[in-house]
């Protein structure tokens, strides 16, 4: 299957797959940023710069790229991407405001997106195509949910983001079985932040003695949603479900929810843990704006916090190790 790249977890990958493409998430790579510096300034986050570097070095084998305006940097990356590649570029304008009113708007955006995909593939997306795709992701997400409730498996998420869903389901089943037979009595730490495709970071956190409770965009926020799958008899039902799924997705700081849903969700998740690590990407505005007040509120609730500020590719883990060891001592001590 040909591939379509996407960046943000609010991209309805079910539609991409229903159109006969493999949705693959574009993430920063191991390479130092070089070519991208000629196209975007130094004060841009290394996720955006890293993705652009992958494009410019010819490391992406995709037919098209789908953007959502989750932050100002991704918004501007859309045009920069289009101007520096030959691939098809599409911007699905997922609303920033999550409420009743934006549902109707998103419905139109989803149909526009469907049209674009159909034009690209030359074939119409049938209800069965979409239902089949929704079911596959549903199965995958259920497995991921079970795995993450025991212990995050970031390698598996990375596969789920970049390989075909059917293959990953099989692998997930095996891993879940193995995991159910192992128990974990360690201190639990909530790791919250945006994206991090570098598995060494998680290995490091675990190696100092933590079990991770996850709230990352390349973790729980990739698959968790409270939406219930209804009977889908017409295309509109399936589209309604997609809206529900992404509106009820584990909340993200790039959105405006009523009643401070993102904050309350995070504070509740922190109850499952003994401490909280903010794994933030330098220059990431959505997360850094929340950081100060979240840290204070967590402190009021007796949770210790640690800020790990990252830039991709990660140059050295040793300094982080020392800080993590000290933090672990504080949390268990």
């Amino acid at each position, binding site marked *: 299957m040909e591939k379509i790249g996407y960046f943000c977890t609010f991209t309805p990958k079910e539609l991409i797959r229903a159109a006969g493409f493999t949705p693959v998430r574009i993430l920063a790579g191991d390479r130092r940023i070089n070519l991208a510096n000629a196209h975007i300034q130094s004060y*841009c986050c290394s996720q955006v710069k890293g993705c652009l570097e992958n494009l410019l070095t010819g490391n992406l084998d995709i037919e098209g790229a789908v953007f959502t305006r989750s932050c100002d*940097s991704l918004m501007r990356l859309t045009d920069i991407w289009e101007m520096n590649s030959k691939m098809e570029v599409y911007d699905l304008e997922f609303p920033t405001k999550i409420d009743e009113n*934006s549902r109707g*708007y998103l419905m*139109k955006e989803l149909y526009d997106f469907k049209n674009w995909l159909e034009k690209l593939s030359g074939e119409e997306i049938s209800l069965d195509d979409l239902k089949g795709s929704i079911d596959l992701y549903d199965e995958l997400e259920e497995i991921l949910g079970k795995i993450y409730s025991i212990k995050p498996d970031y390698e598996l998420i990375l596969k789920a983001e970049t390989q075909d869903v059917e293959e990953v389901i099989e692998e997930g089943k095996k891993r879940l079985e193995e995991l159910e037979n192992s128990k974990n009595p360690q201190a639990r730490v909530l790791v919250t932040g945006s994206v991090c495709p570098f598995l060494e970071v998680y290995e490091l956190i675990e190696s100092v003695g933590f079990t991770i409770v996850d709230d990352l965009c390349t973790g729980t926020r990739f698959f968790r949603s409270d939406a219930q799958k209804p009977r889908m008899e017409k295309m509109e039902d399936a589209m309604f479900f997609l809206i529900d799924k992404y509106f009820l997705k584990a909340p993200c700081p790039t959105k405006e929810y009523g009643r401070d849903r993102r904050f309350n969700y995070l504070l509740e998740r922190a109850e499952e843990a003994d401490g909280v690590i903010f794994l933030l990407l330098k220059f990431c*505005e959505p997360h850094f704006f929340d950081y100060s007040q979240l840290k204070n509120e967590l402190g009021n609730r007796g949770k210790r916090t640690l800020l790990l500020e990252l830039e991709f590719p990660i140059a050295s883990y040793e300094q982080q190790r020392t800080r993590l060891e000290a933090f672990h001592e504080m949390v268990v001590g």
Partner: protein
Amino acid sequence: MGKVKKLSANQRMGEILQSYYLEGLKGGMNSWITSGGPVEFLYAMDIYPVYPENHGALMGAAKVGPKFASIAEKEGFSQDLCSYARSDIGSAIAGDSPVGGLPKPNFLFSCNNICNTVVKWYQVLSRMFKVPHFLLDTPFVRKELKESHIDYVESQLYDLIEFLEKITGNEFDESRFSRILMSSIEGINAYREVLQMGRHKPSPLTCFDGFINMAPIVCLRGTEAPIGFYKEMRKELEERVKNGVGAVDDEEIRLLWDNIPIWYRLRGLSEFFSDHNACLVADTYTNAWTDFGELSSSDPIRGIAEAYAPIYLNIGLERMAEIVNRLIDTYGVDGVVIHSNRSCKPYSFGQYEIQKMIDIPSVVIEADMTDSRVFSEAQVQTRLEAFMEMLRS
């Protein structure tokens, strides 16, 4: 050092701004609002609009940006966040600023047509002050403005009216709103005419005059103040034109400025260009406020949705470059000075691509609108001097 010619409008503008800030101390209901929000709704409901961005600019110009920003930074707000946001949050924590701090908001009204940063910033404020936050969500109009975009923004404007009625306990008066909207358009037209005076050769004003005198169109749009003020300012400029007086002596080079001003270096930069007989005859920043006057629908609410969604910062790079090229053409510009503003990502990212799409030479200077700690005088000076030399040769 060449002397910079001051307009007498500057003084009137100071008086207008002072009385605007004093009005805020009277204790009526107020809302904090972002610079791209449709303020006409607030004026129609007798709600005083407070502009944290204007306040940020004011702190920048008073050179106290770093002082207040560092208060926020001590609280854990990263130095990489927008410096308007940091200075304002710092000012709110300290309860102080050159104007004594801003009045505590009754509620918050943000519109993400200028950036998504304001959504986060206003969420922080909403928790700090424990007041409601209304977001007017304008989709990014990368290519064409779709009917679905307009429908979405329009439907939210009706939500806004309901929200305002609930919070004030007053009914929304449509005819009053229409009158305010008419004043707003009249103000914008008067303002546009001021900016267009820059087409004269020599130009009677520089973009620095535009920056210093933009507060009325931002903060008082919809009231009578900007209409009278800009009409008078235009007269003053016409007088200069009649007498053959340019804002810069012996104007030789005509330039366009891109991005938000470097508020703490207005004078230094103004002198620099004046010394080089270069006049910044126009800019993309003040020009952006003229977008709000383009109401094509006969229904005012839908008209606002159409006008406020595709403003300069909420459109794709190709459209932005078209606008820059149009300004270059209209104002007879020789070169573009591009401020790469660390604090404003949607304004700055993409500038390198826009550079490739414009037909005349340009230079990028790295700075920040309010935070002088990241400003390198020597580096900026060297770049600008080389650019001046290049334009002359």
